[in-house]
């Protein structure tokens, strides 16, 4: 829709993409809820992930076929690297479903940003990372409170050992704020900002290249460089998307490990 608008305006300057390009119009309405492309993408990601793991685990053969091998590899990566190595081999099994779901949900939704015809990273709407960060916050705090008791959990977090007594007055509010606010806030903001900025970058280069192509003359000769750099950025975006999914899950796992261990 945007490119048609660019083609139809003659002599108007380039309209740089901004935050309004992230508001997608509703496609249809179900029971008073407006369903946009973003909602459909999230549902599609859930169906894809569920179908992949179901089909991979269905046969359960001792010598795995290709799909089962891929599914086992993907699952073991999160289970071993992000679960066992971070949380420790005694308690990590309870959290593996949460971590696997988190990692693949974020990964598939991020990669939707560069898949043709879909091309919108759903995590660039602040609501989705905020909900995931809220779930993470709930999990690591509940685990810590259940393991150590309410008072002991906060006491261990707020008073690290080996610090002279008067300095505790300055340090404890910082620790409290970190554990209650900054951790979920930075989790959500990191994912959201990376996806938002990446999508905006791609928009700038592709739409700018198209504008240059249609404005003729010198700019039209230079426009392949804009498109070429857009392609380079697409690959860079893939790296960032995978990395952000990994970092989100790694930090969730780290916070759970910290709440369980509460070392002195």
């Amino acid at each position: 829709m945007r490119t048609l608008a660019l083609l139809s305006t003659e002599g108007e300057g380039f309209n740089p993409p901004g935050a309004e390009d992230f508001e997608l119009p509703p496609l249809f309405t179900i029971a008073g809820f407006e369903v946009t492309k973003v909602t459909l993408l999230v549902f599609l990601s859930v169906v894809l992930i569920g179908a992949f793991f179901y089909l991979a685990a269905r046969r359960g053969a001792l010598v795995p076929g290709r799909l089962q091998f891929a599914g086992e590899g993907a699952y073991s990566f999160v289970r071993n690297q992000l679960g066992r190595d971070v949380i420790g081999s005694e308690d990590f099994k309870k959290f593996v479903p949460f971590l696997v779901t988190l990692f693949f949900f974020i990964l598939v939704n991020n990669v939707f940003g560069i898949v043709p015809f879909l091309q919108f990273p759903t995590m660039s709407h602040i609501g989705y990372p905020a909900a995931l960060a809220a779930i993470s916050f709930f999990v690591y705090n509940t685990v810590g409170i259940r393991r150590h008791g309410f008072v002991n959990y906060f006491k261990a977090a707020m008073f690290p050992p080996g610090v002279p007594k008067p300095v505790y007055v300055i340090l404890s509010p910082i620790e409290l704020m970190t554990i209650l606010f900054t951790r979920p806030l930075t989790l959500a903001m990191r994912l959201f900002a990376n996806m938002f900025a990446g999508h905006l970058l791609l928009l700038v280069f592709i739409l700018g290249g198209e504008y240059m192509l249609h404005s003729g003359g010198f700019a039209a000769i230079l426009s392949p460089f804009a498109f070429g750099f857009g392609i380079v950025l697409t690959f860079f975006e893939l790296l960032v998307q995978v990395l952000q999914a990994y970092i989100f899950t790694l930090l969730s796992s780290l916070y759970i490990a910290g709440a369980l261990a509460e070392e002195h």
Partner: protein
Amino acid sequence: MVRVPMDQQPSSRPPAGPGDAYVIIAYLLSGMVVWGGAGWLLDHWLDTGFFTVIGLVIGAAASVYLVYVRYGRQ
């Protein structure tokens, strides 16, 4: 299972990795926000102008010390 009080449990620190960098940034940010905010509140009540910056500096120094306590010791 015997419940050992927390100061006598062996210190089982999770292995350091790339995630620690983000935790350190979170510590620094919250230190500045907490004490910068306290300084700003003090400014708001006493109608002065300099407590915010003092609070920010104290918060930054305190959070660097906190990172040293948590991550900088063997």
